[in-house]
């Protein structure tokens, strides 16, 4: 059976070059970065080299990169650590309604700790309006966190414009760039942000490798207390192979970004154009143009995402869904709901994400495999039966 991985949003495979770069730091150069001998020196050099590469990817300076163990950690660190460090100036924080849970739940935790939270709504395409951010700002707003692009629907936010309205208020502006860094051009100076999170497994680096870029002079409370690693801001023995892998992946992403994005967006566009032609009552979610290169997200009406996902899997196609049934919490995607999509339609969410190994043949295979699966589930759907009856009634 044909096997088609179209879930690059969940994670990307590790590039062979990245693995090769990492291996020596498992085998021979296993020293602790903090050790004052040759083993330590070797590890330290590798980590500092990676720091330069990661900084280069986002137009920052190496000394402003703090390595973490994931995008989730970077976001937790940024939201909680920045708010805690600024709380003498105020206790109000602002996030968008479609943030990743690592930002949203961190913000809710801060609420429990006595902070006040404003969630800025989005439009039907998932865009955060800078004016709405401006109106949410108060004298005591200390932190704003808006993602650069949404992982579920691919919408790219006007971060530069949002930074423009946040800056005069004096609040710190953090952006979760986990979906964008390594995928589309990201430049911290051009964006005008104060902090930015990224993760290696989104651009063919290892899992368990993330980073937070923090502008010089911005105070943050350490997330992990302990030794002096990462300038005392993130204690714990450095995961040298992971950091080296992140650096290598960043270097390759920077060099190949243009060609990768071009390929992925062609596949994305092919699927976005093709699927609604083959299947009736399919909605493309997210923004039509301000969209991540590899993201093709849909809602298929009258049927449920997990059932579709399982039938696609039985045909060798791996995808994601934001339906309630696919989430552990059994709640439909907060992103789709925030975009005003009704619950029963959000249940039919399906997300295809393309990457380096994807081909036009994969898209053809999806276009050929999807219609019978949708048909099969619709045939047994009481919602579809009701819809058909209504339609018949209307025609009479």
């Amino acid at each position: 059976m044909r096997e088609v991985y179209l879930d690059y949003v969940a994670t990307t495979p590790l590039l062979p070059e990245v693995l090769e770069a990492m291996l020596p730091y498992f085998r021979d150069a296993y020293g602790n970065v903090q050790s004052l001998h040759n083993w330590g020196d070797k590890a330290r050099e590798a980590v500092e080299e990676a720091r330069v590469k990661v900084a280069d990817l986002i137009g920052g300076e190496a000394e402003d990169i703090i390595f973490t163990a994931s995008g989730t950690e970077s976001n937790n660190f940024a939201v909680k650590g920045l708010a805690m460090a600024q709380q003498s100036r105020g206790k109000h924080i602002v996030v968008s309604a479609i943030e990743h849970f690592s930002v949203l739940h961190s913000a809710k935790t801060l609420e429990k700790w006595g902070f006040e939270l404003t969630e800025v709504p989005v439009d039907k395409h998932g865009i955060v309006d800078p004016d709405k951010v401006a109106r949410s700002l108060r004298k005591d707003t200390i932190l704003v966190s808006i993602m650069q692009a949404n992982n579920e629907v691919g919408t790219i936010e006007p971060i530069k414009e949002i930074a423009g309205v946040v800056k005069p208020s004096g609040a710190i502006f953090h952006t979760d760039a986990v979906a964008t860094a390594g995928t589309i051009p990201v430049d911290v100076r051009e964006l005008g942000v104060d902090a930015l999170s990224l993760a290696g497994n989104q651009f063919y680096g290892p899992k368990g490798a993330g980073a937070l870029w923090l502008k010089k002079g911005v105070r943050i409370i350490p997330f992990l207390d302990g030794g002096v690693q990462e300038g005392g801001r993130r204690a714990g023995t450095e995961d040298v192979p992971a950091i080296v892998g992140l650096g290598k992946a960043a270097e390759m992403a920077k060099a190949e970004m243009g060609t990768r994005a071009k390929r992925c967006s062609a596949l994305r566009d092919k699927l976005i154009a093709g699927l609604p032609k083959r299947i009736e009552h399919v909605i493309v979610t997210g923004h039509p143009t301000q969209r991540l290169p590899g993201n093709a997200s849909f809602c298929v009406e009258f049927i449920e995402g997990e059932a579709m996902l399982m039938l696609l899997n039985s045909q060798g196609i791996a995808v994601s869904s934001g339906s309630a049934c696919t989430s552990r919490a059994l709640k439909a995607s907060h992103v789709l709901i925030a975009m005003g999509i009704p619950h029963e339609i959000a249940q039919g969410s399906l997300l295809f994400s393309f990457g380096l190994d994807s081909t036009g043949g994969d898209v053809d295979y999806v276009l050929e495999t999807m219609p019978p699966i949708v048909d099969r589930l619709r045939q047994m759907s009481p919602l579809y039966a009701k819809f058909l009856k209504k339609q018949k009634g209307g025609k009479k």
Partner: protein
Amino acid sequence: MPVYNEKVMDHFMSPRNVGEIENADGVGEVGNPVCGDMMTFYIKVDNNHISDVKYKTFGCGAAIAVSSMVSEMAKGKTLEEAKKITPALVAKQLEGLPKNKYHCSNLGAQALNKAIDNYLKKQGKEGKSKKRGKK
């Protein structure tokens, strides 16, 4: 993605008795699409026995497998026997359901029960109207 056992997968991949019964003797609908699952059961009753049962289901893999299993369990049973089918019994017949799916997707027995109640209610009404007619 929750890990379903082979039996659940079998019922999901090849669901039994899918469909609608025209002029069904009893119809039962439970759930709503907002919470993720919705099932409609249709029954045909002959001589106090469920002679035919069909359903339509909107929902995840578990919801579909549960509907299929309930339909198999109900077929041929007397109404009294069929009313004794519980979610726990269905889960047992399916050799287990993932914990988080146990409540939301395990609506099949409830839908069947509603269909039986619907049938009994109709019968009752018919009975009453007959009585009234006699007066």
